[in-house]
């Protein structure tokens, strides 16, 4: 049993991953990640694939996209649409919560 406190990496926009890292962590192919960028799901900075820098939040987004694609049998445009709508619902819910508690 490990009693020592572990320090993880906070996946915020201060930490960056290369294309290779994203593929490794999400266990997916390079072409699939490139397709996610082309769909506008992921927004790396830097020009050219080799120089792409993905902010930490991309990891969660890529994994979510992968689960949606596999589990719901969606194509990538469908995945991108679902992710956009989920984001919109989340922001509307947050606004509703704020309006209800203030």
């Amino acid at each position, binding site marked *: 049993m490990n009693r020592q*406190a572990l320090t*993880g990496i906070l996946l915020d926009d201060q930490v960056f991953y290369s294309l290779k890292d994203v593929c490794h962590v999400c*266990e997916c192919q390079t072409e699939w990640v490139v397709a996610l960028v082309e769909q506008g799901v992921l927004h790396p900075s830097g020009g050219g694939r080799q120089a792409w820098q993905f902010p930490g939040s991309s990891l969660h987004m890529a994994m979510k996209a992968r689960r949606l694609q596999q*589990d719901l049998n969606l194509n990538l445009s469908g995945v991108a649409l679902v992710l956009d709508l989920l984001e919109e619902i989340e922001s509307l819910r947050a606004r509703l919560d*704020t309006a209800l508690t203030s």
Partner: protein
Amino acid sequence: MNASHRQAEWRSILRYKDYYRIMGLERDASQDEVKKAYRRLARKYHPDVSDSPDAEQLFKDLGEAYAVLKDPEKRAAYDELGANWKAGQEFKPPPDWDAGFEFSGRGFEAGGPDAFSDFFEGLFGGAGSHGFAGGRTRFDGPGQDHHAKVLISLRDAYRGATRSISLRTPEVDPSGHVINRTRQLNVKIPIGVRKGQRIRLAGQGAPGIGSGRAGDLYLDIDFEPHPLYRVDDKDVYLDLPLTPWEAALGSTIKIPTPSGSVDLKIPAGTRNGKKLRLSNRGIPGNPAGHLYVIAQLTVPPADNEKAKELYNRMRDELAYNPRKHFEG
């Protein structure tokens, strides 16, 4: 998986699962209806889509039910058990119930080592565990990633904290059984963490299969609701009730903030709802969030003679009309 292994598993209590009920189907549903029901319910219960707290369990149950009912061999074996079982009932399969059935093919794609219930494992062996029937095929693969939600207080986000997390990790013992071990991890929550952010602990998920690497552990950060503060990303909001004279004349008021109390100057003529910003007193970071104080004017009750007299004097002497804009 051999027969003696199956017998050994049945010694532990299994609870019957009604796969037809889980999928909302009649027992005579066609394979096409099974597929349609799965697609419809998968969209409804997918944990990335549904906000139901039970979504993950419902989706797992659905995946398990579908793995059995979509496969004619497994479905026939399951149907053989009969329709008189009730969900949750203690279940002992009749001897040799599966004689004559050969399970083959790949299991449910999303299934990880803990994907399917003991009931499923008891009936079909480890078909759901590693994607291959009966555990006959060995292969190397990465361990499953684990996700855990961590509730922290707003104070933790300001000061950092260490949280103890219990994880149930399925492991395969030397005889090939899948057993669940509980692991306790202490994890540092960094200063400046925000609601909805994730912490990745590489290699702290489920162990790899064969020589595969261990999965990762992802912690989803959520905040406990606070009686005073509301949090929006890195900004924090505090409602500040004010008396009419504090708002009208201006005053200095000691207010609580998550990083300690401060004296806040209320300018004369502060209106209800006015937002006062305390720069960089929101959640720490680079840049830090702000603390917004929202003025909330309160009306002192006119519940005694003195108070009534004061209100009457104000009415007579102030000539104040808050509805001036109603007049053309």
